[in-house]
């Protein structure tokens, strides 16, 4: 268990370090690259919680899809070689309040005995279990999320179309 804990702290530190670069970095492309590393660190934390399926999906969707799209958009829109792009927006106070609130909630949860690193729950295989749950017990929320995504997609297409 001590080695597990050591790896957990290592991966957590890695994730936080990468996330700090995302937020504090001056260069927007470097921030996007750091975001990728941060997502990979998150995937490692999922693996430590025995959620391998979630970890693989995290890498596939967030790293292989979303961040690459993000980089693509950055390269299309800004002068990428310039390091002067503004990376901090005006809502610093609001986001600081939200972040501190979240941190307080997490600390409270930890002190109440919900630890970040639990022992492996020893599920046989998570993927079939998840699939069945999503299509039976949680079918309605699942479909609601799909409709939300569809609406978002249609909205994006309408906004992007010129004519």
């Amino acid at each position, binding site marked *: 268990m001590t*080695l597990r804990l050591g790896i957990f702290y290592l991966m957590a530190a890695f994730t936080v370090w990468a996330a700090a670069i995302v937020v504090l970095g001056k*260069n927007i*492309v*470097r921030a996007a*690259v750091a975001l*990728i590393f941060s997502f*990979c660190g998150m995937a490692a934390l999922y693996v430590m919680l025995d959620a*391998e*399926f979630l970890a*693989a*999906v995290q*890498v*596939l969707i967030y*790293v*292989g*899809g979303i*961040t*690459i*799209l993000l*980089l*693509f958009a950055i*390269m*299309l829109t800004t002068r*990428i*070689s310039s390091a002067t792009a503004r990376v901090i927006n005006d809502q610093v106070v609001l986001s600081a309040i939200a972040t501190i609130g979240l941190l307080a909630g997490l600390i409270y949860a930890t002190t109440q005995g919900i630890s970040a690193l639990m022992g492996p729950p020893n599920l046989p*295989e*998570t*993927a*079939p279990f998840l699939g069945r749950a999503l299509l039976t017990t949680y079918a309605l929320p699942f479909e609601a999320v799909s409709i939300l995504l569809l609406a978002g997609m249609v909205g994006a297409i309408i906004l992007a179309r010129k004519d």
Partner: protein
Amino acid sequence: MITFAKVIEQLYAVTAAWGIPWLVPTLVVMTIVVGVVVAYIAVAAMFLIWWERKISAHIQVRFGPMRVGGWHGWAQSIADGLKLLLKEDIIPARADKVVFVLAPMVVFAASLASYVTIPWAPGLIVRDLHIGVLYMVAISSLAVVGIIMAGWSSNNKYATLGAMRSAAQAVSYEVPLVLSILGPVMIAGTMRMGGLVEAQGGTWLGFLPRWYVFPQAVAFLVYFICALAECNRLPFDIPEAESELVAGFHVEYSGMRFAIFFLAEYANMFVVAAIATTLFLGGWHGPWIPIPGLPAEVVHGLFGLVWFQVKCYFLIFVMMWLRWTLNRLRVDQLMDFAWKVLLPIAFANLIITGLVLML
């Protein structure tokens, strides 16, 4: 059955009995496995580079390398590798140094990590993960991140253009790729690489091997086309299109860093072929005969090892054959093909497979 996992377990039990902390054998096993895999990748990549040169030469009615090493220039790749090792390592003055140095490592790490779940032979697999196929697809999609990092950090317009094209291509082709691997996964009911191969044992109607390429021929084609795009192979090599972008994302790389990109490309080709072999071509299954004097299990394993390699290298041969036969697609044709042709076909295949399985 003797499996790699059981051998490792035995080893751990023995060392635990000797009072050695389990970290020591774990690290030893990890080092050995990584060493073997890296050695395999290096040798396979050198062979593939030589092979590609030979195939391209014969398609163009040339001889290709003939001199180095004697027999048909077999040592050409070794000579090239040594030359690249000795070359000067140049980092452009205006490049983003950290990202520039990191990029080849990310690309190579992504292809190296995929070798964890390749089922080489019955029982010979480093780790038969629950999510095997998904893991391989997810991990190998990381290579694109390295390509974008390389292209952007070089601070060169050709490299940046190559990186952007690579990003667009990867995002488009990953969707039908993931959908196409779902067909075999649905039939087999598992994502374990070992389980997928085992599900393809035996025959249909007594003569047809139970490979998923027969019921899932459409998925196989979709997968293979997307895999070509993932490897940046012709006709999908727009990220490094020589005639337009000089060399695309790796224009500024030289010496060993360039060699690592080259190595990763061929290592990735093998990964893609291994996934196709496992999902569609029955993996290690193939006819085998018992050899007197050896236990049947060992002989089966050896034949399996050979069959897996034969199938993989056949697919790689097809990829090379296509590269030297077809010409490059334009960017807009590429996008049209992914979203308007491959994606609907992949969805239709998924729905039909699901219907047949339910009925």
